[in-house]
């Protein structure tokens, strides 16, 4: 085990788990945790839900309590950016303070919210959501009786829409594609989501882009849509995806392609530098392709894996992709990567509140998705991981318990 300093860049889910894991695995050397956020490591999922609505304080998102964090005895540098990686002398330059020499470097610096390149995108009242400060600012704008326009019908947009609707706002979601969450779920689930939002009185406009924003003297915003229509509102949130913060790695000459390229041991093209979480791109065996997996699970698991790899421990980061979203009272979960080539088997009624869609490769379940079916999906996970051959007819029958496949 190296006695060298380990530097972790980024204090989100991945960075936080990397730091904890180093200590848990017995590393007693110096750990420097550098991140431009003022908070100790925290989880982002509640930022579009309980923290946004004000039901939970920001501190509730901390990965571990402050006392437990202090016990990790890290050299924590809040509000500090790494400005350059100097690979030959193996050190990082910081926005404040002396450069730090590293033995191993773990990049967990995530991404930033993509913004619209249209006039008015930077006006006051046009929000994005990535960190606690964003959630606080947007949360103050969620007022009963006021109007919110959500640009982007992906996960962030839909979760914010649901939260705002529950706060008594009049909400309209505008999505450029012809269905919701087009990039991540099959059309059956897009339809379920459309129905869910319609049921709760959220308007959804599909196949429509945004050409600009303007703001009048009273602070009211106008959203101009492709096709000429205009929406008047009090606040806007733009949720159109994430841009990985891979510039730091790229400028240091590490291999990048829409993210920092790593292998299943979280190693970049430099053997002393690892990457994990939203910024990292690796070959996901379950998807059969190289990708970044912007999920809570991946941030946690890859952060743990990168820390172990940095200590020279055996690592093979290939968790079955798992994702969930909470909207209104619905909990939607996805295991695996559904693709159009899969055969779909339905368990339960898709027009109901609870059903599971299985995506089959022959008679093997490759992926499963469904709302309000956590327990059935947990059994589905086992079928997927074990690549078990199943009987599709029995799988479709809700009378046959999931444990009996």
């Amino acid at each position, binding site marked *: 085990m190296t006695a060298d300093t380990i530097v972790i860049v980024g204090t989100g889910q991945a960075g936080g*788990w990397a730091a*904890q894991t180093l200590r848990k695995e017995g590393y007693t050397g110096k750990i420097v945790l550098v991140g431009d956020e003022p908070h100790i490591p925290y*989880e982002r999922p509640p930022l579009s839900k309980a923290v946004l609505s004000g039901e939970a304080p920001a501190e509730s998102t901390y*990965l*571990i*309590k402050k006392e*437990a964090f202090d016990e990790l005895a890290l050299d924590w540098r809040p509000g500090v950016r790494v400005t350059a990686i100097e690979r030959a002398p193996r050190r990082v330059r910081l926005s404040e303070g002396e450069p730090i020499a590293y033995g191993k470097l773990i990049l967990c610096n995530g991404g930033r919210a993509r913004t619209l390149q249209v006039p008015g995108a930077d006006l006051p009242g046009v929000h994005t959501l990535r960190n606690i400060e964003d959630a606080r600012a947007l949360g103050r704008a969620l007022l009963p009786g006021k109007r919110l326009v959500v640009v982007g019908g992906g996960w962030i947009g839909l979760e914010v829409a649901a939260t705002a609707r529950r706060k008594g706002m009049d909400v309209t979601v505008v999505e450029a594609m012809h269905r919701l969450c087009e990039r991540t779920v099959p059309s059956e689930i897009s339809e379920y989501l459309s129905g869910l939002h319609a049921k709760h009185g959220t308007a959804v406009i599909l196949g429509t882009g945004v050409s600009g924003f303007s703001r009048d003297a009273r602070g009211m915003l106008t959203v101009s849509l492709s096709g000429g229509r205009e929406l008047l509102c009090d606040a806007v949130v733009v949720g159109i995806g994430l841009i990985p913060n891979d510039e730091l790695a790229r400028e240091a000459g590490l291999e990048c392609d829409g993210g920092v390229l790593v292998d299943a041991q979280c190693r970049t093209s430099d053997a002393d530098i690892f990457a994990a979480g939203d910024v990292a791109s690796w070959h996901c065996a379950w998807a059969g392709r190289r990708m970044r997996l912007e999920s*809570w*699970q991946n941030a*946690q*698991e890859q952060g*743990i894996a990168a820390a172990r790899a940095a200590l020279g421990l055996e690592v093979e980061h290939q968790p079955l992709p*798992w994702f*969930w979203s909470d909207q209104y009272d619905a*909990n939607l979960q996805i295991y695996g990567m559904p693709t159009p080539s899969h055969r779909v088997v339905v368990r339960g009624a898709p027009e109901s509140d609870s059903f599971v869609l299985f995506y089959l490769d022959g008679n093997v379940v490759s992926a499963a998705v469904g709302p309000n079916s*956590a*327990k059935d999906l*947990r*059994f589905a996970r086992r079928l997927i991981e074990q690549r078990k051959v199943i009987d599709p007819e029995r799988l479709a029958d809700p009378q046959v318990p999931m444990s009996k496949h």
Partner: protein
Amino acid sequence: MSNIEWTDAAAVDDVPEDDVIGMIVGGRDMALYNAGGEIFATDNICTHGQARLCEGFLDGHEIECPLHQGKFDVRTGQPTCAPVTEAIRSYPVKIEAGRVFLAIS
């Protein structure tokens, strides 16, 4: 622990083998587990999210939270898998005449 107060929580047969049920006992939300024929009890609300463990997945002596798949050892309440880092409270159990009694206080 001179005089332990035992609360009658359920019939042993109420807790299906290798599964978990949730119930309110003495005003507390509790999870009862049957792990290979032996009964264990813990608080029902995960120490990480606000999920009920009785809706989770019991694998041997480990209960997996349905929300984020953190795990606890049901015998001790100790966390065994991320993201949970804090133990959940576990309760002494005794079985008498086919009933499950818990020491809650």
